[in-house]
């Protein structure tokens, strides 16, 4: 319960930071849209219409109030330059974000489903055969993947699997009409990239969490009571490793989401990361703020889940004395 309220406080603090950061950005949407040569009065009128003339504190609470009602406001872009024009194509932020969020969640979800089990299996087996050639090469390769930046990994995949051996497309265009199979096929490369950049960290941390536990006295005791290797790892070490492992997974899922900003850009995938980059470029404040808030909340939620797993897997916390 305390964790939950702390999580809420964190999200709230994030919202303040997000809002104030973007408020202090140089330039605003009005000058951006009307151009350098716009008259002062025209800029002023547009600002008034968008509510940009109000003091930041008032704007913040207006925005926050609406967010609580699920209303992230309207996008600045797409609106007509002339007041009262019938061709106002301004869109609700929610309507703009939801389909893209779905795309991003699909991408990261598939990547997570690939990365988590793989890194657990690799990490546990590396711990089991510690200092073997297998362990050394696995940890070595994972260090390389962790250290290379997302776009680099992405371009390597494009070079290998799209240019040299054209198996997958370089551009991951999906729309509402795409079937599931099509989606899997088209997102293959971004999924591989996200998997690879997060797997190294998760695998290494799983390995060290297990190794840490393998040196404890109850593991020696388990061995001396005749437990097999498999039993030692699965029955005795793993139940005690869930807490640290789930923490690492949470951090990496969040990292995956943030990494998707770059990866979506590289593969031209219509996800929330691309939307955010574009909106920052256009000074489209409501969209940027909404995206940032979504990223922040996801981070907090993932960490809450990890904490919850930590509590459930630890009888000391679950059953007090």
């Amino acid at each position, binding site marked *: 319960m305390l964790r939950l309220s702390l999580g809420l406080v964190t999200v709230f603090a994030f919202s303040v930071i997000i809002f104030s950061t973007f408020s202090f950005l140089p330039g605003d949407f009005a000058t951006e849209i009307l151009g350098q040569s716009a008259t002062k009065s025209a800029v002023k009128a547009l600002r008034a219409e968008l509510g940009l003339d109000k003091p930041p504190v008032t704007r913040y609470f207006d925005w926050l109030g609406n967010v609580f009602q699920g209303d992230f406001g309207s996008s600045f872009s797409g609106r007509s330059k002339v007041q009262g024009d019938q061709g106002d194509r301004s869109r609700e932020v929610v309507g703009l974000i939801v389909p893209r969020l779905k795309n991003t969640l699909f991408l990261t979800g598939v990547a997570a489903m690939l990365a988590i089990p793989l890194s657990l299996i690799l990490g546990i087996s590396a711990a089991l055969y510690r200092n073997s050639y297998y362990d050394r090469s696995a940890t070595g390769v994972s260090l390389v993947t962790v250290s290379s930046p997302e776009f680099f990994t992405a371009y390597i995949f494009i070079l290998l699997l799209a240019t040299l051996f054209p198996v997958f497309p370089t551009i991951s265009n999906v729309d509402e009409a795409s079937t599931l199979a099509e989606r899997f096929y088209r997102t293959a490369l971004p999924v591989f990239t996200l998997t690879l950049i997060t797997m190294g960290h998760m695998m290494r941390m799983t390995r060290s969490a297990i190794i840490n536990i393998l040196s404890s006295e*109850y593991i020696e005791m388990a061995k001396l009571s005749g437990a097999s290797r498999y039993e030692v790892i699965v029955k005795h070490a793993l*139940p005690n490793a869930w807490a640290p492992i789930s923490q690492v997974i949470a951090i990496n899922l969040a990292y995956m989401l943030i990494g998707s900003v770059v990866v979506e850009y590289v593969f031209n995938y219509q996800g929330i990361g691309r939307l955010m980059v574009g909106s920052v470029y256009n000074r489209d404040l409501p969209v940027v703020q909404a995206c940032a808030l979504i990223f922040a909340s996801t981070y907090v939620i993932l960490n809450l889940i990890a904490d919850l797993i930590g509590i459930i897997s*630890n009888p000391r916390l679950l059953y007090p004395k």
Partner: protein
Amino acid sequence: MTLNKSKELLLEMKNIHIDGFSDERWHKILKGVDLTLHRGEILGLIGESGAGKSTMGKAAMGYTQPGCKIIKGEINFNGIDLAKLTEFEKRKIWGTKISYVAQSAAASFNPAHRLMEQTISAANRLKINPTDVLKKDAVQLYESLQLPDSENIGDRYPHQVSGGQLQRIMTAMAMSPRPELIIFDEPTTALDVTTQVEVLSAMRSIVDKFNTAAIYITHDLAVVAQMADRIKVLRYGEEVEEAETREMLSNPKEEYTKSLWSVRSLIKPEETNEDYMLSIKNIDAAYGSSKVLHNVSIDIPKGKTVAIVGESGSGKSTTARVITGLLPQLKGEIIFDGKKLSPKLEQRSKEELRRIQIIFQMPDTAMNPRQTVDEIIGRPIEFYQGIKGEEREAKVIELLKMIELDETFLDRLPSELSGGQKQRICIARALAANPDLIICDEVTSALDQIVQEGILKLLQNLQKELGVTYIFITHDIATVKAISDEIVVMYQGEVVEQGLKSKILNPPYPDYTELLLSSVPEMDPDWLTNLLNKRSS
């Protein structure tokens, strides 16, 4: 404990050599030790730390710790040479034919599983009896080990039962598959004396009941005297001597064995003083919301030694923390040399801080591993007395001589010292402040018997020379007998009694003191039997 047990050979270890890898090179841990054990017999294996007794015990199962390996030797168990078996074959013997009871039960149970599951896991692997039969049997074992609520205690997790109970449950776990041999590796070392008696008697009766052979490893002679039919003494990985328990106790042959016996003969004539160095009056103290000291009043006579005794959790160390100002009291006052001390450390003057010094239980963690002996001792000299340069150097050397070391130690790091030397350096560091009162918090409990004796003698000599006052916190009654003038008995945060050593250690006792004193093992092999008879009558 009958001596006419069967002479059928169960275990025969011949010429065991084991090497261990540490500090980048291989060391010899065991240098050719032999061991024989008959069915139903209990062998005591004793020695100081580093003697190789634990390694020998594990080797009896054909197991070596990671970083160790068996170089040479035969381990014949029931006619099979364990040293030649593969890991897979040995696993069929471990936990079922030979089981192991570890020193720290709290660390040796898996925190993620319930106790019952762990108790029967080895027997379950045999697949002879179904799980519910094994569970019933485990409940019976719990019962014969006198565990409370034996029906349901198995449903709990390890953190939900006490250390003494865990140790008994581990014995039940070892007994569950009815092994032919149990290795007890210092099973009661981490327990209080009062708990130790219960665990010892429970273990002894159950081993008797099933006529199981056992190897009992300990550094405590009095304990091994209660358990073993035969005793083998190890030192530096070699056998010193071996004999029947009674023979060994009454007539030890080797000098080394005799020296192990002699530690408890250190005696100090008691004296007291009406002039108090320190008086604490009606102290209450708490950690957060849990109150640990209730109305504690203690007087410490000048130039004398007051021992504070009690089991863990009785508030001994908390009292020391209050006196030093590390934990400000909630209520009551501390009078030091006629003046009131402020509860908080920050509000005490440098002079007040200088006059009270403390020595801790673990010299390893009480010293900065990156500082040399010169820096460790020199810093309080500089800080409290403002002495620098060559004069300081001379002072440090003088202090080193006082603790029976010399200037060759000046540039050494703590890692280059033995346990006893480290504790001596800690004593010198306390002395460097030229204090009037030194609080010794379990200063000898992490050390071997012979080293303990040296430290206690040193502390006594320093008191004679310098007239310093000691508060000696300990749970070891033998130490108390050796060093104290007065004794304070504490129990659950309260003072049970305070008085001269002769008064406290002689009847009539209050109930708790009686229980505490009678629980201290004695060298008499019949002590435990007599005690249990006395208590049950």
